[in-house]
């Protein structure tokens, strides 16, 4: 479904250039949930943006089953406060992608999309400031789903939320994956979140993939790279040794 071959993403800087993503290759099968984990600046979000067609590649190749930037590939961003237009009602937010893609029957689809993410029709004419963080993230997910994509790209979809709200959103994403057979790529710095949703995970550092492994290997701590081991240790909280 998704194939990335030797991707290179280079940004110009004042003193030359920086390679945010270097020589990254990976495959994601149809219907799979794939995790990307790593620290800030490791290139995981940049790679996701390239998959969405938001950042051009400087080298290598990405094939995503269809043209990047088409309605088949939709993205959900980290910060639900910044991702929704503050002066659009939920209705207008959901209507716009339908209009852009020339999809009819808007009213039925908007109500169905809201129901799918667990928001009643009462939320349809609210503005983002009248919603909680979790409700906004549900609207962001509804906006992505309303055009019936095949691939959903998730950039830290729960890291701005309380853990109780995170659990609701994770359950929602898991149900959507199961019912819609969506292919998903999830970027997170939390291995436990990755472990809940994903089947496989790639660990990124300094723009490169240092390790790719199945989620069972993560759970049984059967990892080879020192960096992955430290990430695993950090899921247990603070100890004087793991700092």
């Amino acid at each position, binding site marked *: 479904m998704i194939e990335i071959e030797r991707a290179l993403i280079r940004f110009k800087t004042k003193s030359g250039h920086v390679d945010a993503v270097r020589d990254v290759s990976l495959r994601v099968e149809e219907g799979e949930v794939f995790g990307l984990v790593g620290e800030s600046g490791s290139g995981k979000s940049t790679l996701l943006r390239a998959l969405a067609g938001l950042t051009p590649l400087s080298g290598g190749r990405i094939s995503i089953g269809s043209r990047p930037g088409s309605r088949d590939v939709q993205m959900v961003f980290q910060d639900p406060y910044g991702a929704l237009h503050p002066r659009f009602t939920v209705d207008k937010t959901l209507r716009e992608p339908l209009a852009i893609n020339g999809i009819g029957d808007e009213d039925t689809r908007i109500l169905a999309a809201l129901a799918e993410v667990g928001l009643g029709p009462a939320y349809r004419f609210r503005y983002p400031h009248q919603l909680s963080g979790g409700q906004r993230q549900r609207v962001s997910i509804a906006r992505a789903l309303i055009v019936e994509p095949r691939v959903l790209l998730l950039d830290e979809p729960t890291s701005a939320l309380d*853990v109780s709200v995170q659990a609701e959103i994770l359950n929602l994403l898991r149900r959507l994956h199961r019912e819609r057979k969506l292919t998903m790529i999830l970027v997170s710095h939390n291995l436990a979140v990755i472990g809940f949703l994903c089947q496989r995970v790639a660990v990124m550092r300094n723009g490169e993939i240092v390790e790719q492994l199945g989620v069972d290997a993560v759970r049984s701590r059967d990892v080879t790279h020192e960096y992955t081991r430290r990430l695993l240790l*950090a899921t247990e909280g603070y100890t004087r040794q793991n700092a």
Partner: protein
Amino acid sequence: MPDALAEIDGLDVAFASHDGVLMPAVRGVSLTVRRGERLGIVGESGSGKSLTGRALLGLLPPEAKWSAKALRLEGQDLLAMRPKARRRLCGTRMSMILQDPKFSLNPVMTVAQQMRETFVRQGVKEGRRALRERIVAALEAVHIRDPQRVADAYPHELSGGMGQRVMIAMMVSAGPRLLIADEPTSALDVLVSMQVLAVLDEMIARHDTGLVFISHDLPLVMSFCDRVAVMYGGRVVETCAARDLVHATHPYTRGLLEANPPLVNPPDELPTLRRDPAWLDEGIAR
């Protein structure tokens, strides 16, 4: 309590809504921090945990309507103090570290300039050169590898972890009796936050500083603090030793704990929190 470092007794904070109705944000909170103790305050956004910490420092927003039976630091009544004397406590005997160093450091001053300001405020009377040495030593103490370069850097030239170390250096090097850390690592990466916590751990142990650690991350608080207060709807619903938090009894605390996805054997569906309206009004369980 004889070994009490800081005491909050019966704190109420409320804000007026558009139509003038007072909306309570903190309701009758009483907490005690003992000398050298690390008290964690956990709860969701809006549970009143940050306001509780700020009330102790006298840093509530001006539009807040608040009252308390008593606020004390080392037995001294903070409510009876003149505002000027109370302000003088901030940055000397009490300090605060905020979530994001991008917003809490002054963007148009170098690290050395703002640290100099802090030290002078703390009563250090030294010449430029001695003060510079003191600043570099404070940066070295928080394990900044190149303190000379960082001292002359502006905040935007620092990473998040580095900025937070600078904050700790500024706030802890005077050896405050009480430090309030409001989500000090939630803007940072997992591994960087472990390093920042190690620095914080070392610094407060060295100065025997009491810590109020405000966070929504229960596993982190369990591993870093001695005692935990759980807040919901502006109230403390449960207080216990941090190591006993896994056996917490209040359904709200249990709900928060169980909502964390476990790495090993995650359930098919995560349990979500069912909020019981009765929690808002029940007596404070302690």
